[in-house]
């Protein structure tokens, strides 16, 4: 559904937003796109929707070349999008905004429009400029969900919302996806909400994908291996593949493995620790460790 290869974006001021991003989002998945602020999430999304052009590399969405102006029109016809800023037309009323958007999408879902107008309790005759941020987010979501899209791209949809509204927005996305066949690409730096709704994860840091895969597989393959020694933990170099990060702190040597935990444990035992503890890792730990490692 979304595929990028070696995607690079360098801005005129020399800032490198993307440094060879490889991305693969399969059809039907709900993919969380995690990264720190400034990691390159929004730049990637803008390239996928034809709003920005890559310096080099390839980007394909729905099988179409996202860098071609004509193909990107077709991509946008078949995609729903909510931007981080939820920048809608302040001078239109809610109902004008809905009618305006509906005119561009032949597969516009009137049934969903009515349902979400009721569910989100959006005042039809109120100007968009007079809506609260939460209301504006709900309207932006309605405008994306009703397009009859095959792909939904959400750029930090809950950014700046209070927890109640953020939860309401997430629930709306989850229930929509449960009822409709579509792929969701969901950017965020809120790990908990990504974990709540996605089945696939891409972690981006400094313009490169550092982790990519199904959420269950990541949970299954990532392990925290903690070794406790009598004295100070030794400086160890592991040769087994799958070591993502090694950290020494006093008597404790902590190893984060992305795969191959058994082989790493076997190698660790040769260091003669007092105890070896292997524990599953949360997405938050994976995120913090991988981003930290890449950032160092």
């Amino acid at each position, binding site marked *: 559904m979304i595929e990028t290869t070696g995607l690079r974006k360098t801005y005129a001021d020399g800032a490198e937003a993307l440094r060879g991003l490889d991305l693969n989002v399969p059809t039907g998945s709900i993919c969380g796109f995690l990264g720190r602020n400034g990691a390159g999430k929004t730049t990637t999304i803008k390239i996928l929707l034809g*709003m920005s052009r890559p310096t080099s590399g390839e980007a394909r969405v729905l099988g179409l070349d996202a860098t071609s102006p004509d193909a990107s029109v077709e991509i946008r016809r078949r995609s729903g999008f909510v931007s981080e800023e939820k920048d809608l037309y302040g001078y239109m009323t809610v109902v004008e905004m809905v009618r305006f958007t509906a005119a561009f999408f032949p597969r516009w879902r009137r049934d969903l429009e009515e349902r979400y107008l009721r569910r989100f309790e959006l005042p039809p005759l109120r100007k968009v400029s007079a809506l609260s941020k939460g209301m504006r987010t709900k309207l932006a979501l309605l405008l994306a969900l009703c397009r009859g899209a095959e792909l939904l791209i959400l750029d930090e949809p809950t950014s700046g919302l209070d927890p109640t509204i953020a939860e309401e927005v997430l629930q709306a996305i989850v229930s929509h996806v449960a009822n409709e066949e579509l792929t969701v690409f969901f950017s965020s730096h809120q790990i908990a909400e990504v974990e709540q709704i996605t089945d696939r994860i891409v972690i981006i840091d400094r313009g490169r994908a550092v982790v990519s895969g199904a959420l269950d597989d990541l949970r299954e393959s990532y392990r925290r291996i903690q070794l406790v020694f009598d004295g100070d933990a030794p400086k160890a170099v592991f040769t087994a593949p799958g070591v993502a990060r090694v950290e020494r702190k006093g008597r404790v040597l902590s190893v984060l493995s992305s795969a191959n935990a058994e082989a790493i444990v076997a190698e660790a035992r040769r260091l003669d620790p007092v105890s070896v503890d292997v524990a599953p890792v949360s997405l938050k730990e994976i995120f913090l460790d991988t981003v930290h490692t890449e950032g160092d």
Partner: protein
Amino acid sequence: MLWYKSWLETRWRFLIGFALLLCSAAGSVLVYPQIARLTASVPVNAPGILGEKIREAMELARSYRGYVWSHWFGQNLTQMGTLFAILLGTASLLSESSGALFTLSLPVPRRRLLHVRAAAGLAELFAIVFVPSLLVALLAPAIGEHYGIGAVLIHAFCFFVGAALFFTLSLLLSTIFGDPWRPVMIAVGIAIALAIVDQLSHVSMFGVFRVMSGERWFREARMPWAGLIAIAAATATIYYGALRNLARRDF
């Protein structure tokens, strides 16, 4: 629906400009009898270029045709019409606060966004130029004067061609800058510079504002085709630049 969006974005600028120019046109006609009496009775003895200008203006005001050309087409319409052409051309194409990303997420090529915005703005500019100008002719019998509709259409056409240049310039600047103020300030600055050049060039009949006022038609009953074609070519080039700039722009 893009037409509707353009209308909503520019309607207040258009309506204010339209109302002001209608009032100005009506006022220009209705005060003419007093001005005609004044010019007949007051001698002008001021020396130098200023005196020459005043004498020329008073000479023109002795006939309704001369007054309409110098006062309406040469001053009020030129100044206010040019300003509103610039204001109508200022489009918030890049500003995220005006929904640029939402617009760009629609399945519409960028060139179409600009075409619709330009066409809607030019239609408003057309109304702002032609309707008040026609009022000058239509109100003339109310003060016992006559002004031909054909002459109005010719002068308004010349002005419209020139105003489209400033409209397009403002549109181009809007594809470069994200805020609405810099395009207005730069375009107004360029308009003032061109007006000064017009004043300085005594021999040229092809200054932008001279072409816009239809001076050649007024004095020689000949259309300023060369000037009009040059302005139209410049307008087309600037519009092409705006299209190219918008097409390659990163948002």
